[in-house]
């Protein structure tokens, strides 16, 4: 009962703050948008906690709310985006946005309806629940290669950014 109430509360607040990130009727300030993005992430972490994925919830807050969006704010505050404040969402933009939301919704719906109601052999408790050790085993044993490839990808992006930001590069 309380679980259901909490789920609907978190889900509603996630969606509401996500909408306020892109279409805030009161303020067109980019800093306000970034702060609503933080709220979206916090409520999403609440949803993860309800799924007993404590590790994901903590990392979600630590990485996205604690670091990535702080850097967003850093950039927004240094650039002083006056143009961004006066810009409105055009007709084309809203149509394209709605279409892409529709496509994502259909894709998710198709993918989820294809699943059996209960995966055979699965117990009620997911094996990754709460504990960090099973997650580590899965990442570093079962999915080692994809994990390492992803980390190389991140490294490439980092080196690329440093190269681009250096002005006098020989």
């Amino acid at each position, binding site marked *: 009962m309380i679980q259901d109430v909490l789920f609907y509360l978190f889900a509603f607040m996630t969606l509401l703050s996500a909408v306020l990130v892109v279409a805030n009727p009161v303020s067109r300030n980019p800093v306000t948008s970034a*702060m609503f993005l933080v709220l979206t992430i916090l409520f999403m972490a609440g949803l993860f906690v309800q799924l007993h994925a*404590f590790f994901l919830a*903590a*990392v979600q807050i630590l990485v996205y709310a604690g*670091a990535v969006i702080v850097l967003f704010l850093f950039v927004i505050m*240094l650039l002083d985006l006056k143009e961004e404040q006066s810009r409105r969402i055009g007709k084309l933009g809203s149509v394209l946005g709605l279409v892409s939301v529709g496509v994502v919704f259909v894709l998710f719906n198709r993918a989820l309806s294809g699943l059996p109601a209960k995966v055979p052999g699965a117990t009620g408790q997911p094996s990754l629940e709460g504990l*960090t050790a099973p997650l580590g085993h899965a990442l570093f044993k079962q999915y080692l290669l994809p994990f390492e490839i992803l980390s190389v990808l991140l490294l490439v992006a980092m080196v690329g950014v440093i190269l681009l930001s250096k002005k006098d590069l020989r």
Partner: protein
Amino acid sequence: MSWIEHLSPTQQFVLFSTLKVLCVIVVLLPTIAYSVMAERRVSAAIQDRVGPNRVGPFGLLQPLADGLKFILKEDFTPAHVRKVFFWIAPAVAMVPAFMTMAVIPFGSTLGAQKMVIADLNVGILYTFGIVSLGVYGIILAGYASNSKYPFLGAIRSTAQMISYEIAMGLSVIPVFLCVGDLNLGQVISYQSNHGWLVLYAPVSFVIFLVAAFAETNRLPFDLPECETELVAGYHTEYSSMKFALFFLGEYANMIAASAMMVTLFFGGWTLPFFGLDQPATGILGGFLHIGIFMGKMLMFMLLFIWVRWMLPRFRYDQLMDLGWRRFVPLGLVNIVATAIFLWMRA
């Protein structure tokens, strides 16, 4: 007390959790107020002054007088500020410091209750997540003030806190390599069996200590407020109770950082003699453990205060250099060295 047994487990959980939260806050608030007072008395002693000693016996009622002064002062909001953010910022600065206390085991047991508010499996990650939210209070204050010095203070603190969070995160990994669990209760029971972790991971402790000074904006790393360059940094435009919230938030953060260091490196509520390293059986032992924890924590608070009046402030580029070019590589080497050591031993 028979009515407690009649409650369902959920009701008992809610009742005891609420009680623990209330007790922690009731103890924490005076501790914050008196650490401000301790700061003033210790600094006076270091500088060969007298310090506040007029209000009450030995000046012990000074925090009350300070609090009254903050409430009675005019709460002035400058005309050029961004109102909403200006009001939210002090609260955002204060709340995370309290939330980190939720996973700290501040005692063994009282009766059947474990003396920790939330016994999370991911304890340390929760703490890091909440601590990383603390930076928003300072950023929002700087942005909302809409003037140059607070803004510069906010920009500095953003870069400083993110940089030292990385060093701090890297520094605790060897601790968890030794323990094999992220739960802070497990960390303490490991220490009661094998000895304090500061002996196993001294490099980790040094990095964590320095990073804690940087994260709480204390001298020698108080660049976000840095009065000789930035007037008062991010809280230049604040007055009255709003300023007090930032000020007390800093001390609350120091208490949280001290509690973390005691838990991770100095055995939490345990002491290695008189059998004090096992969970208490009676009520008296339970209170004794809480007392031991508080004592260790206050020692670290004293260290925070002492260092402030001993060291000069770092220059900003020196601060960043120390974080990125010294502590991050050192932290990485420390992880690899600990891993190799544990592998050789196994």
